[in-house]
């Protein structure tokens, strides 16, 4: 089987697309550049929406990007089960697009937070975390101003009871996120949004750890499993991770 192709979207103001493409390559997949103004995903097997300040955070962080042509294609792909990862501004974009519930608002301390952040991966039952045994502690960079996850009480109850809180902050809260939530997944476990950045943490030489690499390796596994299932014929539900 040839290497999975993982798309990385660039909007005006995206910063971390190059790091995301590098992480995809380190994980053994082929990064494919996707452009905000096109609604063509070029047949990729998975999509990364990287961080930065798309459209200068005008209106609200992620609000304009969520309404661009490429996001319409991402929403359609997510409905078919294509793995989608939103990191930082990418997480904000996926919430604004309605692919994930809740919203990201300004940090409780009113300060931009930039630090190496300790996290606990709570669930391996997603396309992006299957390589982490549940409860794994990792350290990756966090750099955000609107990083405080909020959701109404019914949404929060659903996320917690369905095991969809995938990543949680450890130690003192960096931003006041409700229940220390750093990342959440869609109900089918294919779409993951997280504020901390796994993509610069793939090599101890250039990041605080290599803890983030397994995020991208998990997606490579998920794509390989989906291909196997397709080749073997339709087996109901077997393409779902978790």
């Amino acid at each position, binding site marked *: 089987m040839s290497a999975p192709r993982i798309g990385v979207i660039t909007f005006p103001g995206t910063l971390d697309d190059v790091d995301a493409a590098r992480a995809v390559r380190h994980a053994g997949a082929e990064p494919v550049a996707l452009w905000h103004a096109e609604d063509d995903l070029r047949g990729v097997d998975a999509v990364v929406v990287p961080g930065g300040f798309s459209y200068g955070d005008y*209106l*609200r962080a992620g*609000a304009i990007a969520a*309404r661009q042509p490429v996001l319409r294609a991402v929403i359609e792909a997510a409905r078919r089960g294509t793995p989608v990862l939103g990191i930082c501004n990418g997480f904000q974009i996926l*919430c*604004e697009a309605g692919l994930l*519930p*809740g*919203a990201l*608002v*300004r*940090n*409780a*301390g*009113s300060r931009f937070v930039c630090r190496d952040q300790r996290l606990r991966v709570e669930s391996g039952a997603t396309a992006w975390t299957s390589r982490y045994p549940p409860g794994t502690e990792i350290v990756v960079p966090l750099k955000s101003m609107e990083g*405080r996850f*909020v*959701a*109404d009480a019914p949404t929060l109850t659903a996320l917690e009871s369905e095991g969809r809180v995938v990543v949680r902050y450890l130690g003192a809260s960096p931003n*006041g996120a409700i229940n220390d939530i750093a990342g959440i997944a869609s109900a089918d476990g294919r779409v993951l949004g997280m504020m901390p950045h796994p993509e610069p943490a793939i090599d101890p030489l250039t990041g605080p750890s290599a803890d983030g690499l397994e995020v991208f390796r998990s997606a490579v596994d998920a794509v390989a499993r989906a291909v196997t299932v397709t080749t073997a014929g339709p087996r109901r539900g077997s393409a779902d991770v978790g």
Partner: protein
Amino acid sequence: MPRVVVDVVPKPEILDPQGQAIVRALSRQGVRGVRDVRQGKHFELDVDDDVDAETLHRIAGELLANPVIEDWTVRQL
């Protein structure tokens, strides 16, 4: 051409650190009696005559405001 105003504010249950910073700044300036500030956004739209109220509310609720965290009002000047 009608002018329409959309005002957007954070929902009461959403902590507004910018509003809190303004309250503290007022206190440091010696202004007394301001207990709370909620910072929001004010939009002025010049629209064609045939843009109806339903469309305006859709614009407000689907783009100008995020209903998860914000309330909004639409009024025509």
